[in-house]
């Protein structure tokens, strides 16, 4: 076969591979939405309470659980991630210790979420005697999300040009004043964008929460130490042990809703990211030093 012919065949093959990848995505989206969209948008499903034996149950407490879990997790992990990212971007020197921190972060990032789930069960639920609750799940997910949140926050901080730091330091500002007054305000839009994508992971996470937060509740959780049932885990439990006659309908609707939530979060992140790109470094703090 001549080189031209081989090239033409290769081009076809690569187009086919690209198309296969995209069609997998399209197929999943269309199927899941096609089966569950009508249920997912039904107010009685969205705002109803789940039923234990009979058909017609809703998922409102599960939606609240998911949102509650997201808020708690971000409150716990954001300060730590930002602090760690500032250290890694501004202070850390190349060397053994820095290398070891990176190694631990990479390991955390590759650790299966079921391992986090069992760890949360052993530490927060059992050893701390918190029982199954939102707080146990939030701490577990905070550790699970630490590497991804830290990395994107660090990138946002590193995008702040060095000239900003030099200008501030040459005016006599200390390192910390520079970070507090110049670097963090400049990086803030980037940090906010960096926070959005991990939210998608929290919403979709199930293996790490079924043993820490719980899989079924009847009423909306109020206290962070209440047992709850985030949507993803509830969907899994419902299909694993169907207890109601219309379980298929509930799982279809829940899966479609989950997909919609994740996509909304994704496009929000994209939109925020684009805005940030356009006015990068807009909003430098005007505070007095």
């Amino acid at each position: 076969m001549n080189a031209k012919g081989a090239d033409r065949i290769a081009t076809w093959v690569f187009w086919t591979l690209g198309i296969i990848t995209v069609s997998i995505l399209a197929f999943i989206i269309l199927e899941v939405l096609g089966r569950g969209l009508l249920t997912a948008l039904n107010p009685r499903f969205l705002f109803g309470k789940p039923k234990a034996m009979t058909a017609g149950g809703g998922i409102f407490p599960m939606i609240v659980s998911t949102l509650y879990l997201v808020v708690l997790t971000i409150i716990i992990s954001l300060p730590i991630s930002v602090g760690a990212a500032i250290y890694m971007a501004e202070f850390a020197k190349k060397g053994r210790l820095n290398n070891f921190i990176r190694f631990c972060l990479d390991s955390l990032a590759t650790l299966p979420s079921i391992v986090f789930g069992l760890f949360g069960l052993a530490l927060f639920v059992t050893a701390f005697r918190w029982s199954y609750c939102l707080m146990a799940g939030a701490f577990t997910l905070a550790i699970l999300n630490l590497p991804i949140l830290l990395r994107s926050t660090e990138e946002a901080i590193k995008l702040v040009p060095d000239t900003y730091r030099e200008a501030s330091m040459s005016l006599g500002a200390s390192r910390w004043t520079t970070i507090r007054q110049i670097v963090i305000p400049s990086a803030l839009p980037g940090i906010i964008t960096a926070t959005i994508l991990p939210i998608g992971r929290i919403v979709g996470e199930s293996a790490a929460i079924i043993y820490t937060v719980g899989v079924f509740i009847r009423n909306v959780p109020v206290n962070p130490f209440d047992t709850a049932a985030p949507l993803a885990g509830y969907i899994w439990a419902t299909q694993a042990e169907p207890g109601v006659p219309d379980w298929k309908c509930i799982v279809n609707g829940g899966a479609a809703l989950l997909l919609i939530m994740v996509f909304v979060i994704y496009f929000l992140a994209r939109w925020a990211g684009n805005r940030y790109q356009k006015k990068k470094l807009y909003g430098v703090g005007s505070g007095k030093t």
Partner: protein
Amino acid sequence: MSARSGGAAGALGAKGAAFADREYWVRLVLFACASISILAILVIFLFIFRESLPAIRDVGIGNVFFSTNYNPQTGHYGMLGFIWGTLLTTFGAMVLGAPLGIGTAIFLDQIAPERTAQVVRRGIELLAGIPSVVIGWFGLILLVPFLARTTGTAGYGVFAAVLVLVVMALPTITTLSAETMKSLPQELKEASAAMGATRWQTIYKVLLPSARDGLLIAVILGMGRAIGETMAVQMVIGNSRAITFSLFGRTSTLTTRIVTDMAEAPPGDHRSALFAMALVLLLLAMLLIIIIRFVSRQRKLAA
């Protein structure tokens, strides 16, 4: 500072010291934040290890990690069959997923027009965000019945798990491969084209060899996702305790066995054996990271 005189010097000195002092504390707090990752991995390891000790003590290391006899009713907790299940499904997912992912990355970098590439990239990012329960549910209601119809088997089993894992690992492999391809120097591509090479010859003889290490890392991280994936696989693999060597055999992986048994495993040897499986998963994940570090160090040395 010492050049100044009088009371002003003392005041300024104190202020300067206070500044230096604050700087020190701030730095310490920030360092503490950064070292939480070290603490986290350590505490996770310790707790998983501690919880898996009872099973190891009561049944014996060999009978837990190197035995295929798993029957909680009779007190046998050998996990070798599930380690095999994890390796088999991961291998299968890489056989299909690596060419598809790397091929898509080459498509994005070399072949697709910019607008098409942009759309495909967005699509892959979206695919990465789809929760595993959704993909598992999709596999359960579509893939399994389809496999059952076309192969005459139950549909559940290794092959269904492999297909689900391909979907889960594909975004990781594609994104990282595409980054590697993009990072190759433009001169490489131009030089090859200038020599009269066709696009395929450039890809095959120039780009792929120089991207080798990066693509390897992409596939290893894809493996990491496949090894750790739990819910989606659990929904389609059949959850049998049997070891299988068949593509359509029902079996379990380490992750799916934990989820399947956890609900009916009260604190005791059974639950402890499940923690021992998590310990193996943890060690596998860290092994992958060590391999990646090794590969990238080799690359740095070669450069």
